[in-house]
């Protein structure tokens, strides 16, 4: 499927300033600022409980920040969440879809929520079903699908309305090697067409291969950000072969941040 993002704008796809969120007086996100350019593939890394999902849930409008601002494609997401939601899509780590609908019915519902043109939505739905290897299950109610299949249905739902910004929380969890390759290919295509993708992952190899820039979060703060080389320089860490492993960089950065904290 050929895709071109028609909504490309000059504004940053995501601009976060001084974002804060606490749970029971314990800060989960602590004065976090972040700018992601339009058409960029950005990976957000961090140890468990670092604040990645909390940050992204605030961006998606699922949590209200205690303080700070979030701008999505130039739209103030805190003041005008509905307009911001119009240009973005969120895929949670757990594929939350309707058990009693089949993938096509699910996509039709999503298209309705984003008020898409019905004919275009139908075309896109059938393309996505093919592209993500769901065609054989298009008429199977989602309750009978495996977790990986459900994950792909959720991803198709995120892609059908052509968002400018796609946020994915651990999108490859539960996918087999073939499905993971399909998903990665679809995401790369979207980025090539101008869509911005932000992804959290614990599979560092995926971040290393796919992301143009990587952000590392620890204790609710952005402790490092940049390309692999920039992060490597910051960590001051080289592997034996002279190359740079993201895993080693990541562990070094997180360890030094933990020591400082």
């Amino acid at each position, binding site marked *: 499927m050929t895709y071109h993002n028609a909504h490309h704008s000059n504004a940053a796809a995501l601009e976060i300033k001084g974002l804060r969120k606490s749970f029971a007086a314990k800060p989960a996100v602590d004065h976090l600022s972040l700018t992601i350019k339009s058409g960029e593939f950005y990976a957000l890394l961090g140890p468990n409980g670092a604040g990645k999902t909390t940050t992204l849930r605030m961006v*998606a*409008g*699922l949590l209200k920040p205690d303080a700070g601002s979030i701008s999505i494609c130039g739209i103030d997401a805190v003041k005008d969440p*509905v*307009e911001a*939601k*119009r240009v*973005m*899509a*969120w895929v*949670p780590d757990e594929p*939350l*879809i*309707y*058990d*009693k*609908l*089949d993938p*096509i*019915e699910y996509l*039709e*519902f*999503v*298209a*309705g*929520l*984003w*008020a898409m*043109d*019905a*004919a275009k*939505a*139908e075309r896109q*739905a059938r393309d996505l*079903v093919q592209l993500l290897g769901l065609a054989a299950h*298009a*008429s*199977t*109610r989602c*309750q*009978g699908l495996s977790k990986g299949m459900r994950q792909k249905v*959720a991803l198709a*739902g995120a892609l059908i309305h052509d968002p400018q910004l796609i946020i994915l929380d651990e999108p490859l969890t539960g996918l087999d090697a073939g499905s993971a390759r399909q998903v990665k290919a679809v995401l790369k295509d979207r980025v090539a067409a101008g869509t911005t993708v932000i992804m959290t992952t614990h599979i560092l190899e995926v971040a290393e291969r796919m992301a143009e820039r990587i952000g590392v979060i620890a204790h609710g703060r952005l402790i490092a950000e940049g390309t692999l080389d920039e992060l490597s320089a910051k960590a001051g860490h080289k592997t034996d072969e002279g190359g740079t492993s993201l895993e080693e960089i990541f562990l070094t950065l997180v360890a030094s941040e933990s020591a400082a904290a």
Partner: protein
Amino acid sequence: MIATQTLTWFARHELLLAWRDWASMMAGGRTTRERVVTVMTLGFVGLLHWLAYAILNPILKGGVVISIPALVMLTSTLLLTFSMMLSQAIEQVTRSFYARADLDLILSSPAPAEHLFAVRIASIAFAGFLMTALLAAPFINTAAALDELHWLSAYAVIAALSTFSTGLAVMAAVALYRAVGPKRTRLIAQILAAVIGAALLIGIQAVAVMTYGNLSRIEVLNSDAVLNAAPGVASLWWIPAKAVLGDVSAALALIAAGILFLVFVIRAYAPRFAEQAIETASLSDEKETNSAVKRAFVPRTALQALRAKEWQLLARDPWLLSQSLMQVLYLIPPALLLLRDMGPNAQVHIILAPVLVMAFGQLAGGLAWLAISGEDAHDLVATAPVPERALMRAKNEAVFAVIAVGSAPFLFGLAFLSSWAAGVTAVGIAVASGTAILIQMWFKVTGRRTLFRRRQMASKAATFSEAFSSIFWAGATGLAAAQSWWGLVFVVFALATLALARFISPRP
């Protein structure tokens, strides 16, 4: 080492979970409100006792004589209660087969799963006792206070009915499981539960209609045919009725037999439960639709898409349909009660008005619970470019539309009898449904629909508030249909219930 092999360990575990659920629900997540909630609950219980006093005082003043007509009437009431308890127990027991997520940990551990099932069967019996006792308590306590303490033995009768109904439900569920297999057991058991819950009533009602041309069960039970066929006062058939009337030895015999029966069932059937739960876990959920080939996408706005989705999900939910059917069938007893109280010359439309309000108020509450709280794709809906108020509006409209379509034929029929009653009933249904939806919005908890059923996550505070507000709106509608200003008293009660529900509901 923790003694995981023991029954008491499982019982403590289940009790701890039940207690924490209950405490969290009653306090609405705030410990500071516990005291106020307790005081208001006690006030409400006091109000129910006052109502029971108003009903029982004239009856008990005349004295209760153990006669064949009294025994027939009491036994039929107990049978009706038992059939409803059995129906509920079948539903609960069957549900425990399919509570897959709850059982995964236990079944994969070396602890004997039959111990867990033994505890769960006992807890079903206890819950059945508690629910029935809660409804009967104002009457039992008031009778004991006005007359003699022996009326308290009615609690023992309720406990015995609960043990018998739970034991029979376990036997029926296991037999059904063997006969039709795990895939069909759930649906058939739900239908069976609905039929058992209503069969006796409908049977008596049918006899009344066929024989006397009206709905009066009193006329059937007091008929010469029934009284002549009834055994003498000394017969063992009357043991439950005599136990209610204060025969302590009858009450003790009944409760002992009930406990023995339940213990036997637990010992014999708990191990089979574990095997069947494992078999159920290997079931495939695969079901085909034909959407891939059937049609083009329908152009819809976001609100239309939301409403259509709700209707689609409701239509594909056999559990919900059977539960709704049961709710409607359960309303036959109040209708008969009203009929008895109002005499054979009562005007049918005055009887039908409150019954319809009660039925559709309850149905709206059940649907709203699933539509508002049971959102399978919460993140998707919450990240859609639709304001939250509009989302809620669409869900409420979906529920209201079902209620409107369901009640329309009844209202149309009622309009032939009395246009005033039809109008009042339509308003009553709308208000009762709106109240039920409002209560469900206040007690909203986000979760997946399947978990709601399997884990019984519904807030009991919401369930009771909804039931009582429906009862009060039904009362108000009945009196309004009879053109009585006394209906305003019920309106006040309904509004007080609503205020109480708002107060105890969890705050965001």
